[in-house]
């Protein structure tokens, strides 16, 4: 008794009994594969939905799973927040080029706040050095590896570059999986569980602000910042892209980004672009301001200014 279930062009015919038998054998074989606790395959990770399509409950479940995973791995209580953007807030950043002395304290404060890989090294901020008085906007001719005894050096000025949080972000347009998007408060974020590591966004970014994890991020357990955000500084995976998020875990909790707090000369300013009384609005209205590569129409929310 061999009843055809449906027409099939390959001409494979299989009766019900045979199908069940082979399916059972297949499941048995799969479950017999050696699985260690560390890289246990969680079906929920595979079935996770896009972050913006998840309900509150689903987000809570995902965060619970990720917190458990991270806490197991780092043997520390890692907290992952999913704090939403506050309505009426759009973040803007100001950087005073007349004050920056190029000490790179922001670079390393960012690394420890945001759990970047130490080796291989990942930095979200690049501090570029230019000669005063020369044509300097050719960013490719700037010096990034300067290493004098003391800064500032004579006849030089410095320009830190990080994610400019563009309103019309080329990276967001380039992403084939919509793993990166602009949040309502203007921060461009990445879902590390949705990123497939194609690096199209890195090619699209005119500011070189995005970084790729070529290997599993290497962070000493005692230096891990355990206050994290799902879209920000939570521990990342190998093969995903990351970048500055204006310290989303701090700024959505009302605090200044880590780079603002560490800057010894107070060159870095931060605030709400929609609040007319904010520092950022004051400097845009009263100082000489420019944005990097304005001609590309990316509409950055990162304002370089001269306070003097």
């Amino acid at each position: 008794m061999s009843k055809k279930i449906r027409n099939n062009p390959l001409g494979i015919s299989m009766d019900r009994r045979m199908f069940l038998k082979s399916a059972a054998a297949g499941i048995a074989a799969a479950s017999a594969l050696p699985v260690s606790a560390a890289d246990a395959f969680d079906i929920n990770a595979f079935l996770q939905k896009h972050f913006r399509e998840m309900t509150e409950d689903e987000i809570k479940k995902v965060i619970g799973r990720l917190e458990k995973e991270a806490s197991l791995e780092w043997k520390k209580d890692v907290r992952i927040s999913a704090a939403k953007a506050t309505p009426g807030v759009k973040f803007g950043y100001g950087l005073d080029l007349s004050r920056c002395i190029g000490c790179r304290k922001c670079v390393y404060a960012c690394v420890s706040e945001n759990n970047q890989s130490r080796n291989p090294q990942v930095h979200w901020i690049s501090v570029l050095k230019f000669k005063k008085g020369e044509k300097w906007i050719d960013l490719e001719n700037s010096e990034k590896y300067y290493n004098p005894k003391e800064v500032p050096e004579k006849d030089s000025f410095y320009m830190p570059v990080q994610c400019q949080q563009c309103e019309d972000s080329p990276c967001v347009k380039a992403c084939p999986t919509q793993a990166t998007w602009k949040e309502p408060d203007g921060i461009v974020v990445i879902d590390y569980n949705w990123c497939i590591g194609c690096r199209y966004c890195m090619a699209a970014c005119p500011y070189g602000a995005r970084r790729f994890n070529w290997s599993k991020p290497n962070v000493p357990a005692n230096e891990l910042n355990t206050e994290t955000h799902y879209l920000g500084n939570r521990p990342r995976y190998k093969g995903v892209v990351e970048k500055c998020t204006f310290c989303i875990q701090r700024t959505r909790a009302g605090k200044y980004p880590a780079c603002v707090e560490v800057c010894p000369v107070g060159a870095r300013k931060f605030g709400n672009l929609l609040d007319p009384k904010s520092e950022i609005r004051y400097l845009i209205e009263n100082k000489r301001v420019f944005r990097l590569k304005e001609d590309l129409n990316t509409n950055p929310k990162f304002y370089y200014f001269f306070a003097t």
Partner: protein
Amino acid sequence: MNRGSKFIFGIMTVGIFFMLSLAVGAAVIEKAEEKKDDIPKFFVPKPPPSGSFPCSKCHTYRAIDKKKRKLELSHTGITLKHAEEQRWCYDCHEGDKLKLQNGQLIDFDKSYLLCGQCHGTIFRDWKAGIHGKRTGLWEGEKVYLLCVSCHDPHQPKYKPIEPKEPPMKPADIKLKK
């Protein structure tokens, strides 16, 4: 009126004008100090007083010498590099206090009023949160630093510091096996 009395009358007029303007100026400064709203509330603790504070522990026994000279007995650590041609100690110091141009004495923790006399635009930026470092909350309580937290008032130029190490060059980045 003869020439002489005209001259004296002129001097008196000018003198009265100057006195009036001085008084008005002082009133404006006092008013600015009273108007606390635009002065930030949160400061870092007072900068640690140097070893020679309070001044009165020696200066009550010394006559005031306003002559510019090299200090050899005390305050040898202070080098004045701040419009030193025009300035001497007693232009800003008096007793245990700081002295404004109008003669008003203020405490050391209000030193921003002293600096703000000349650096008005910077003072304005500082009050708005543009000049100098802020920590705390971007929409809420902020901690402001005093001018003297970053600038030595006698040598105000920001001192160079050692930079952190440069980033690795791509060629030096090795993947861990």
